[in-house]
């Protein structure tokens, strides 16, 4: 009897946790965002052909950035070969689309099957690379993943199955904005929930202090591999989306620079912030498209930004902070008070300001 009651209350609290006011509110907000986007596109307020593509690119970038954030932001490992997993996912999806096109009539179903296969292959690659690599310290891991990415590219470029540098073409017309949007929502929600679970907290603890985490009984190798594999799994999804979106994949689109692009987004958005990665992905995908004429300055600015952010804000622009509706409401509610306190603080600082004296300081003999 007690057991049944326990089970019932457990289920109830589980459902209660998921379907809370917050959950419903956030779902509603998502729908609002979705409908605003579709409204803008469908009623041609913004050119749908151009912006539909931009939106899909942004969603792909979001998936790539959020997934890399699990390995780099939350686990704290330097991964420089994320595009390699993306390439594996993209090629798997392309193969599935090629061979299952006749068997599966439904476009949506074809996308789901292709993406799931991409997840499987990218995940297997993640296990194969991660298991040995994660015994290594951060910098070696970075180099090893870099090497992995390069090997994937070289192999794709020279194998007969992948038609080498000619590339593979994928059936067009499968990827659409709603499909990309909801795939992204599923991936981001999964990663968010995962990071809030006990496994996610174990991964966080490894980033903070490996030795301390080990001493409280966390299986470091297991969780490192788990974080790394989850990152590679979703890179596979991103690759599959990319293949269906672009319709034509070549090995050179998954080079070292692609990995660096994703990496820059994660670092600038905030290492350990999912919302930061989302904002940064949207920003750094949209802005270069708008400023085509400055394309040659793009990487110059990226790299300078990377150095400046590392020197003055080593955890990225958003750090580990997350954007949340509650937080925003709180921010505006307490804004007057904070402004008042802040200005008081500033005035006191100015009042007590002393000009630095360049003479010899008291007490220093050097």
């Amino acid at each position, binding site marked *: 009897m007690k057991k049944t009651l326990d089970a019932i209350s457990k289920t109830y609290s589980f459902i209660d946790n998921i379907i809370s006011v917050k959950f419903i509110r956030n779902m509603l907000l998502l729908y609002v965002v979705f409908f605003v986007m579709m409204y803008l596109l469908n009623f041609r307020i913004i050119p749908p052909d151009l912006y539909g593509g931009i939106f899909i690119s942004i969603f792909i970038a979001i998936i790539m950035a959020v997934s890399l954030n699990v390995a*780099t932001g939350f686990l*704290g490992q*330097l991964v*420089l070969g994320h595009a390699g997993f993306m390439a594996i996912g993209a090629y798997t999806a392309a193969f599935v689309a090629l061979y299952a096109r006749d068997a599966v009539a439904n476009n949506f179903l074809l996308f789901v099957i292709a993406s799931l296969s991409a997840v499987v292959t990218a995940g297997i690659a993640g296990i194969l690379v991660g298991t*040995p*690599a994660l*015994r*290594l310290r*951060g*910098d*070696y891991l*970075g*180099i*090893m993943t*870099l*090497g*992995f990415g*390069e*090997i994937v590219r*070289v*192999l794709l*470029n*020279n194998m007969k199955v992948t038609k080498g540098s000619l590339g593979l073409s994928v059936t067009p017309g499968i990827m659409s904005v709603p499909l990309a949007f909801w795939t992204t929502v599923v991936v981001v929600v999964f990663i968010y929930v995962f990071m809030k679970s006990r496994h996610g907290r174990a991964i966080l603890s490894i980033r903070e202090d490996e*030795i301390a985490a080990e001493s409280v009984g966390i299986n470091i190798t297991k969780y490192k591999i788990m974080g790394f594999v989850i990152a590679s799994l979703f890179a596979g999804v991103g690759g599959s989306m990319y293949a269906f979106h672009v319709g034509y994949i070549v090995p050179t689109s998954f080079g*070292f620079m692609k990995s*660096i692009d994703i*990496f820059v987004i994660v*670092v600038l958005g905030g*290492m350990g912030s999912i919302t930061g990665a989302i904002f940064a992905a949207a920003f750094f995908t949209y802005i270069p498209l708008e400023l085509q004429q400055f394309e*040659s*300055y793009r*990487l*110059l600015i*990226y*790299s*300078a*930004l*990377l*150095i400046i952010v*590392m*020197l003055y804000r*080593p955890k990225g622009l958003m750090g580990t902070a997350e954007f949340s509706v509650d937080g925003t409401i709180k921010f505006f509610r307490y804004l007057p008070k904070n402004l008042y306190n802040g200005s008081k603080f500033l005035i006191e600082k100015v009042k007590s300001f002393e000009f630095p004296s360049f003479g010899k300081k008291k007490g220093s003999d050097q």
Partner: protein
Amino acid sequence: MELFLEQVINGLNAGSIYALIAIGYTMVYGIIRLINFAHGEIMMFGAYFAFLFATSFGEVYQIPLLVVILIAMVLAAIMGVLIEKVAYSKLRNAPRISALITAIGMSLLLQNLALKIFGSTPKVMPNPIPVNPIEIGLVSIPLLTVFTILMTVFFMILLTVFVNKTKQGRAMRAVSQDKEAAMLMGINVNNTISLTFAIGSALGALGGVFFSLAYTQVAPTMGVMPGLKAFIAAVFGGIGNIQGAMLGGYIIGMVESLTKGYWSSKYVDAIVFGLLIIILLFKPSGILGKNVKEKV
């Protein structure tokens, strides 16, 4: 047999270049535990400096090659020190990953700076050394290869003597062993680190000049692949160990040219990266590296 000997000589040539670049990686890693990703770009700038001094005074090589090389080395050394002062010195106590990201940013910055300054089209690097090779028995060795190998060996001996016999070299070894203790012994740590960057960058530039002479061109992206391979060489030999970097450079060069000669030039990069992964799996500290226990 002829093919084999030819490939061995090619390997020695490529290996010399990798070894010179790898020394820079390994010295910097040894002293501040940082993989200086910008090192490949310093090598590229070194090659460009040499190119500019070789071509911009009327006819090519108004200044003799040796002087051009020396100027390029000095300029690259200054550049290396500046990079350290601007970007890395502030991050000495920061988490490792921040320093690494800064190094990656530096590498991209220099590469794109070079793209802006010099343009994206590769330029022809003039070669003043006569092309007719020396015939020894079965094989013929190009003079440039002889020059490269001899210069490399000369600078390696110079470096080894410097590190082992002089006061500055001893300071360098002390700082790489224990920074705090070295400071307490009255060693100026900042100057020692700057000196390390200067020497590493100068040798990298030397490698860059040889690379551009061997391939007769300079390009803004020329530093990436040799830089990565030299890094692999440094890891292979045991990062932080100068002799290891030399050995690793020659091994990588050999593997590369033998792969090219006997199998396929397509898979060279994959083989070299595969080699890196294998050495990291079985002996992460490299061939000559010591296993360092981590203190809690």
